[in-house]
């Protein structure tokens, strides 16, 4: 049971306070929290998600410069607190089209309204975006213009989430849709760790199946994969029926309207990674020679785009002088180097080389940086997962189905 929710700006200012229960949590708790953040080095991303203050337990998550802070004095499942705050952050991001201090301050009435519907007396009610949308209209230009012109409109619709009338709580019973279309996207993230010798230490794909559905009535969808056996652990949106998956490994569901995450999965034991990065650092007498080579390791069959390499040099490096034969290199003041390569050219393999001057008295580099790699491949799910087909029942004949796949680098690290 959360007693209170605060939204703090990145300077520790209370932007919003929503008391949930009869017990009023004094704002001074935010002051205490902020002192705690400062005492821990001031980096909000490094603060524990659950802290025991002398008077309350504090749940906190940090998103885009905003701290979502909730207090409780009673025992409760920790993930309920954390997950709820994550949902609040997600819903606000969706509503406000982003998340930052100004957006919250400009729209604080909407934030209050949302919190009011998402939680009563400290217990979460609904956090499903499309149900909330039916109760509180998101701020948009159209409604602003309307309110100026007519002077009457309100951003509250009078329609209530009528779960009783509908057999599925995530979908309204009488949905009309102008465009009969449904899109399925496979979005995969490749997490990998490579040792300095180029050996794959760990490699795993985390994937999500996103569906964007604009269908009238009660469409009944069945999605099947060509090779479902490679999936390691699958988590489902509440709309997915469990038995068909258990029996035949097919996803059978009545979708909510709009975009949602149908399922997420992991694929383990992958051997093929698309890109190699070969860093070489050799130090001698106060200098360090850097040489980084990037190239294609296993061709995924599609173009690899947005290739980036990023590494943080230790603070004992006095000056950095690096350049590349392809792409651009940026070195920030905190000695973070960004090398954006884009696509790999046909004629040469991109390399970055240069010289580091070390602090006086240091002979060789004491710590080696980790090279973090980013890339994007459109049209391929690297796990090898393939959609077999999507069947739709209870539907008029004409409708449009679309499939896409995309793989991005998640935590793709190369040690040096």
């Amino acid at each position, binding site marked *: 049971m959360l007693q209170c929710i605060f939204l703090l700006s990145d300077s520790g200012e209370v932007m919003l306070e929503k008391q949930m229960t009869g017990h009023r949590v004094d704002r001074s708790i935010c002051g205490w929290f902020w002192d705690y953040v400062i005492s821990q080095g001031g980096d909000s991303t490094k603060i524990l998600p659950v802290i*025991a203050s002398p008077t309350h337990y504090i749940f906190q998550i940090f998103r885009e410069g905003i701290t979502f802070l909730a207090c409780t004095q009673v025992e409760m*499942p920790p993930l309920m607190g954390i997950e709820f705050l994550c949902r609040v952050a997600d819903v606000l991001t969706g509503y406000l089209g982003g998340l930052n201090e100004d957006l919250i301050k400009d729209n604080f009435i909407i934030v209050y309204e949302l919190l009011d519907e998402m939680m009563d007396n400290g217990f979460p009610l609904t*956090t499903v975006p499309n149900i909330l949308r039916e109760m509180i209209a998101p701020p948009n230009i159209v409604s602003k213009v309307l309110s100026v012109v007519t002077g009457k409109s309100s951003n509250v619709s009078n329609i209530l989430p009528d779960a009783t009338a509908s057999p599925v709580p995530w979908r309204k019973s009488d949905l009309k849709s102008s465009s009969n279309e449904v899109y399925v996207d496979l979005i995969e993230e490749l997490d990998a760790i490579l040792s300095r010798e180029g050996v794959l*230490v760990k490699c795993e794909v985390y994937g999500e199946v996103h569906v964007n559905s604009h269908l009238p009535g009660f469409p009944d969808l069945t999605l099947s994969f060509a090779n479902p056996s490679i999936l390691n652990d699958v988590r489902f949106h509440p709309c997915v029926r469990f038995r068909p998956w258990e029996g035949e490994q097919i996803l059978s569901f009545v979708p909510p309207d709009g975009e949602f995450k149908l399922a997420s999965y992991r694929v383990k034991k992958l051997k093929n990674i698309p890109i190699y990065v070969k860093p070489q650092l050799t130090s001698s007498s106060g200098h360090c020679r850097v040489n980084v080579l990037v190239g294609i390791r296993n061709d995924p069959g599609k173009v690899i785009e947005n290739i980036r390499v990023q590494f943080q040099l230790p603070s004992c490096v006095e000056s950095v002088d690096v350049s590349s034969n392809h792409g651009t290199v940026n070195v920030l003041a905190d000695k973070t180097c960004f090398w954006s390569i884009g696509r790999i050219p046909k004629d040469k393999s991109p390399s970055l080389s240069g010289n580091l001057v070390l602090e006086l008295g240091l002979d060789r580099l004491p710590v080696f940086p980790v090279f973090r790699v980013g890339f994007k491949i459109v049209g391929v799910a690297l796990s090898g997962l393939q959609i077999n087909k999507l069947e739709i029942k209870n539907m008029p004949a004409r409708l449009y189905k679309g499939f896409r796949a995309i793989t991005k680098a998640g935590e793709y690290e190369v040690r040096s």
Partner: protein
Amino acid sequence: MAPPVPNLPKTSSPSQPSGKSEVADLKLQLRQLAGSIAPGADDSRRELFKKVISFMTVGIDVSAAFSEMVMCSATSDVVLKKMCYLYVCNYARSNPDLALLTINFLQKDCRDDDPMIRGLALRSLCSLRVANLVEYLVSPLTSGLRDSSPYVRMVAAIGVLKLYHISPSTCLDSDFLAMLKALMLNDPDAQVVANCLSSLQEIWSLEAGNLETVSREREALLSKQVVYYLLNRIKEFNEWAQCLILELASKYIPSDSNEIFDIMNLLEDRLQHANSAVVLATIKVFLYLTMSMTDVHQQVYERIKAPLLTLVSSGSPEQSYAVLSHLHLLVMRAPILFSSDYKHFYCQYSEPAYVQKLKLEMLTAIANESNTYEIVTELCEYVANVDISISRESIRAVGKIALQQYDVNAIVDRLLQFLEMEKDYVTAETLVLVKDLLRKYPQWSHDCIAVVGNISSKNVQEPKGKAALIWMLGEYSNDMLDAPYILESLLENWNEEQAPEVRLHLLTAAMKCFFKRPPEAQKALGVALAAGLADSHQDVHDRALFYYRLLQYDVSVAERVVNPPKQAVSVFTDAPSSDIKDHIFDEFNTLSVLYQKPAYMFTDKEHRGPFEFAEELGSLSLGTGSVENVIPAQIYEASDNDLLLSTSEKEESRGLGNNDSVYSAPGYDTSLISLEDKQVQPESNFLSLAAPTMASHTSSVLDDLLGLGTPIIPPPPTLKLNPKAVLDPSNFQRKWGQLTTSLTEEFSINPQGVVALKVPQALHRHMQGHSIQCIASGGQPPSLKFFFFAQKEGETSPFFLVECLINTSSAKAQINIKTEDPTLSQPFSTLFQSALLLLSPS
């Protein structure tokens, strides 16, 4: 009550009012608009409302505009209404008289045609939380519970709980609980059912001690019929309500194994829910259900492994942290289970340190013969990490693995390689580990000492590392050729050595070295003893003196004391006991898991329960005349600092007993403890039973030694007190004024008790154990003053009010008892005295 914003940067908003003039201005504008029905009036009102609420949000007191806001609230605009409700709920409690103004329009809105407005109005009406307005709540709530719209019913269900917190008697006297129960079992809307359940659970758990019927109702909630009814419908509920039901189900005791399998079959797909809270709640049900079936329990571990690992790698760092904490608990119980999944716990560069630390702990826990090589190789990678704290943790992890393995060969090599990295903190951490390793595996001394001997002591600055190095110098001075000389050079810098820990080790090492190589080390020992004797640190001085006298007495005895042959340590005691781990496991899916401590170890002083009571204590001021030095219990200003003291600090100051003058909000503490008691009753009972038997035995022996007599404790009389007596401060004050003193007694108190009294809270807690509640305390030693109350067992039994004056220097106490039934004052006095006599320092 406008929340003050100390220490917070003020908003930079240009529209922030600098004084009262802006608020006055707003009031004026609102008043002008109040009755207006001109087109556009709503828009202007909306702008004004927005301004008022933005002031409220940044913490400026705009309660002055209350009546104007209420005047403007007669509108059909829903957003305006919502803003107005928000404002009213925020300020109603500090302006109860003005809140009355709002009742009318809220009640009217509760009868609106639009269910949304009915719901919102009802929610706001219940959130006013003004005690003297409860009479207006009953009828809207009753009709709300019968409303045709599920939205209104759902709001009303929670409204009943809110009513209960304002006035339990009003809530219980009306027929709300029965209505909620009926709704819970029959309502077609899942959210209504969930809200009824959550309200009923909370009310019943708070009332359970008071009424027989309530306890029975509460048990009925866990009956097969109710649990099955809810579980069968579980898919209709939203994810949060599912958590609630799963939590309930985890307490259900199935009658046979078929039921267990039924429930698990029913819930299996919940493990694949997208919401991590649901997954964890389901896991809890699975684990608890199968507790008695060892085989199935193991299968459950297999089944939950994949979902947990997915949660770790797919969620936000905050979720990963919470899940990892739970995984850590499971791994402790079944390390084999995850031994092949060790790669999941490899740290990623971009993860926050708190996640990495937990992962390191996981890697340590699951290391066994099959995976040690890989894990240690991976850990060695982290030692070169940029983040020094992770680097340290990694070294410690390698050390821990070495200590729990039989085949430490390779690990020792790795550790020794760390020493060659020539980084101060790496060397320091490694030295500590090598020392521990040698204590457990003396057979490795040759390999280790060869490397350790090469370390220049100048490169080791951290006290712990230095102490470890010195220990090895002393212990293995036979193997290290130049040990006496290194010690000598270290001794030269005695005065620069800040840490007493290092100086203590230097003394001992010099002694050991002396016994092993007397001619070479004699000089060093002389220097060490001389420096030690002149040392200003008490422990160092004492140890030097002790060694000196020991040597004077008999050198061979000294050798037996300081340098006996050592046995290898088999188990280090700092590993958490399995008892505690089991305790934490019983609290799966709670905060205990995150703290890695069972609840009783950290909730002791925490504040729980219905909160009004605690807060209203702020208005308490006790009588006149005799209370000049009584600090009224719990006032926010007085305790603000104190509240924000870190718990550990508090702990310390209590432990030292030096907070005589600063009472840490005694009334607050006790009242809350009394409420908390209801929830942790079994434990506190257990403690209070266990403590006296043990304490009395040991302390009496001590007392005999110290010449303190144990007073004879009279047998406990037969008067029974209500352990859950509740009397709020205003009532206490009223009663104290009405009643006359029926009994005054003086008696001596136990000398141990006087010691315990250094910390008033000790007495509060102690008396609470005897069903006597402290309501206020104060005074300066040697004279302390306490006010207590107690109630004879039974709902409407008479109260006892006690003023207790204790003089700690003369160990005398005087009590003045006032009670509604003077015939009981003598038995109560006996009981009170015997309770007070049992007080001993805990």
